[in-house]
């Protein structure tokens, strides 16, 4: 198979460094992965191409990069499936993290987020002589999260981190969930509560916009966004229901439950607090603009037809045994 790798390169050691594109034409086996192609370039054509790679089997987490615009592991993607009609494949370094050289990015920020969630088991109470007793289901569930190889693909393509680097981000939050969901980690009044409280703050679990990009690009099926949603539920259940995020979720669902449709006008005050005048006043200009452009939601919120059926749905979700 004859293919062209179009690679975004960067050399920090030239004067006024800037990224540039370079094309490499090569012939590969039909079964070759993108990583096989990059290694061939490096070994046979141009040894100055820098990239991280090691295991060749999607387990070491070294080779995350953007392939045709989306983050993924080069060793997990077959060239045959990645090329366009002209047999071209586009390779860039991972996003969000700064580039060090060519396809190598600086992971310092990635790891500092991981470190921020106290990433180790913190059991409370006496340690058993033998193993902790735990159900296989609980462990299999956790293994679905610990399958994370810290490749950074989710961070690369996280649409929040792209604009707000202070966000803890999908990898660190999934890591945090791995502990809050572990029956061996702290108890509900102690460590587990502390963990949730810390994640409940600004830059934490409520900053995710649920764009699902991380779920899409994760090569290991960890589904970080789903873990963040699970964290939110844990936080609310632990009594942390007094944040914008928690109240927003509550306002959203109670509006739907009662009328079958969203009461957009009341969503904002219910989220930030009806008496939170500073924030509400801040929003006044936007509300005015919406009004003048005919975008303000109706002042009188109506129930939809058959709203009672929506309520039934809610009941069924909340208490599946009863229905």
């Amino acid at each position: 198979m004859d293919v062209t790798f179009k690679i975004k390169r960067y050399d920090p050691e030239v004067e006024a460094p800037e990224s540039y594109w370079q094309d490499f034409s090569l012939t590969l086996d039909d079964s070759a992965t993108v990583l096989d192609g990059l290694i061939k370039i490096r070994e046979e054509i141009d040894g100055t191409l820098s990239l991280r790679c090691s295991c060749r089997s999607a387990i070491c987490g070294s080779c995350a990069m953007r392939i045709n615009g989306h983050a993924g592991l080069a060793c997990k993607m077959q060239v045959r499936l990645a090329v366009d009609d002209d047999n071209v494949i586009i390779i860039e370094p991972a996003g969000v993290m700064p580039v060090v050289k060519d396809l190598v990015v600086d992971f310092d920020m990635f790891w500092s987020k991981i470190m921020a969630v106290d990433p180790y088991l913190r059991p409370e109470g006496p340690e058993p002589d033998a193993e902790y007793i735990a159900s296989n289901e609980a462990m299999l569930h956790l293994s679905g999260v610990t399958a994370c190889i810290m490749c950074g693909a989710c961070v690369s393509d996280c649409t929040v981190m792209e604009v707000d680097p202070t966000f803890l981000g999908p990898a660190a939050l999934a890591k945090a969930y791995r502990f809050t969901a572990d029956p061996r980690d702290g108890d509900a009044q102690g460590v587990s509560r502390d963990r949730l409280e810390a994640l409940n703050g600004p830059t934490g679990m409520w900053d995710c916009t649920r764009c699902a990009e991380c779920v899409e690009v994760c090569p290991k099926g960890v589904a970080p966004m789903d873990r963040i949603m699970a964290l939110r539920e844990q936080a609310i259940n632990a009594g942390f229901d007094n944040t914008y995020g928690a109240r927003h979720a509550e306002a959203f669902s109670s509006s739907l439950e009662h009328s079958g449709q969203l009461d957009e006008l009341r969503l904002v005050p219910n989220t930030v607090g009806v008496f939170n005048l500073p924030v509400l006043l801040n929003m006044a200009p936007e509300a005015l603009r919406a009004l003048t452009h005919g975008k303000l939601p109706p002042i009188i919120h109506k129930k939809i037809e058959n709203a009672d059926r929506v309520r039934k749905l809610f009941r069924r979700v909340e208490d599946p045994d009863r229905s």
Partner: protein
Amino acid sequence: MLEHDVLVIGAGLAGMRAAIAARAEGASVAIISKVHPVRSHSNAAQGGINAALTDRGDGWEDHAYDTVKGSDYLGDQDAIEVMCQSAGQALIDMEHFGVTFNRDDEGKLGTRAFGGQRRARTFFVGDFTGQAMLHVMFEQLIKSGVRRYEEWFVTGLIEEDGRVCGVTAIEIRTGQVFVIRSKTVIFCTGGLGRLFEPSTNALIVTGDGMALAYNAGAQLMDMEMVQYHPTTLAGSGVLISEAARGEGAYLLDKNGERFMERYAPNMMELASRDVVSRAEQTELNAGNGVNGCVYLDCRHLGKALIMEKLSQIREIGIDLAGVDMITDTIPIRPGMHYMMGGIKTDVDGQTNLPGVYAAGECACVSVHGGNRLGANSLLDTIVFGQRSGVHAAQACRDQEYIEFDVEQAARREERRIQEVIDRPQNGDRIGSVRLAMGESMNRNLAVYRDEAGMLETMHDLQGLKEKYTRVPVDNKNRVFNTDLVFALELGFMLDCAETIAVSALERKDSRGAQARTDYPNRDDENWMKHIVTVKGEEGPEISYSPVSITRWTPEERKY
């Protein structure tokens, strides 16, 4: 000045375990690794880790016997006893650290069967046990407060008055050369799979530590014992774990027959690895394969079991060979997988060089002898990692730093490296020299060996070593210069390759992983001994070391 009581080289399972243990002893500890710790090759371990837990009716003596037999009686029985006796606690420690081991119906740790063992005593996390353990070990490393040099490449050892007192290393991100002083050094640099092409091993597994220690005068032992794993994927040579056979998969020839019946009627597919690999190679040589492969058949295991316990290797089959093990057989063949030999140590990790320790795959205690049992290597890393960490830390207590001219040592190494970078651009490429070495090793030091073949490889290696002095480095800059790293690794690989070929030529019998067609039998009278190599004036020099036998007298091996 960078200085630490204990410097651990390598941050795989052995290295991190050693560092945590040394820190717990109160020493100042640093760990240095050419890749971020969680990228270390330990993460590739799929199948699991062995331990005989007494509370489920297993006994460490049984585990030890299986290990001794598996080693073809070349393993040192005193060391094997230490490993198997410590296994239970070492495993429970890992569970307490947070590893999410699969459970049984009662919520206790669950087991699966593995090759060469009469009981199921392999504990596991799906089929990514190594990754699960490695990430948890990293969590504990963070907690321990050990200083980490991540993405630093060790290029040499510094010796003063016959004692190792530090290392030189390149900080890969900047390309700058540093000296790190230490009272003791623990090598935990892993195996050397990339000497062979193909291999199941990751691209970073290049025998650096063995070569560094060897060049400083350390003894290497059992270097002829290279494990070929029975189920590596056609093409890339990536591993399909023994867990598949542990869960009940079959090996089939081109006619769909389970040929293991003829080689190991009792254990069948779960005989020792050397036995199964030889059986496959024999079938392949007889023309009973297809395109150089036989088949691994998992179809009868059912989708549910495969998804719960073998999902990662299913993905590997799909991604790399385009076959789905739920519906298809997988083409596989024996492939280079593991190094039983390494830096000779005692049960506390101590080498023949004062202040230098080794643990994990780069070390040879020797608990694996002629053939390692599946799932004994992860155990080896954590048991001997911990022991060497404790011992090295204790050895520092009444030891002062040795004075030497740090600046000068750094400058000397900087100059040597600049010379490598400055080589003219007209020699053979790094990749082509490595490939020639890998193919030669895989041709002549594989499942079956003979003198003519091994001499051919010796000859090849001489030529390649000569070429090596001229391989050019394309990248003349310093920041993340992986080209330079490969050039230096290639030198380490060639040193190790030579010791393997020399040791294999020396051993004139067939035992464990070494099967010589010109000496087809095990000869206990003459060759029940370890082969030891040290660096001499003209290359490796050979001596012997006795095998420790405590309670199991050698007998013929049948499975």
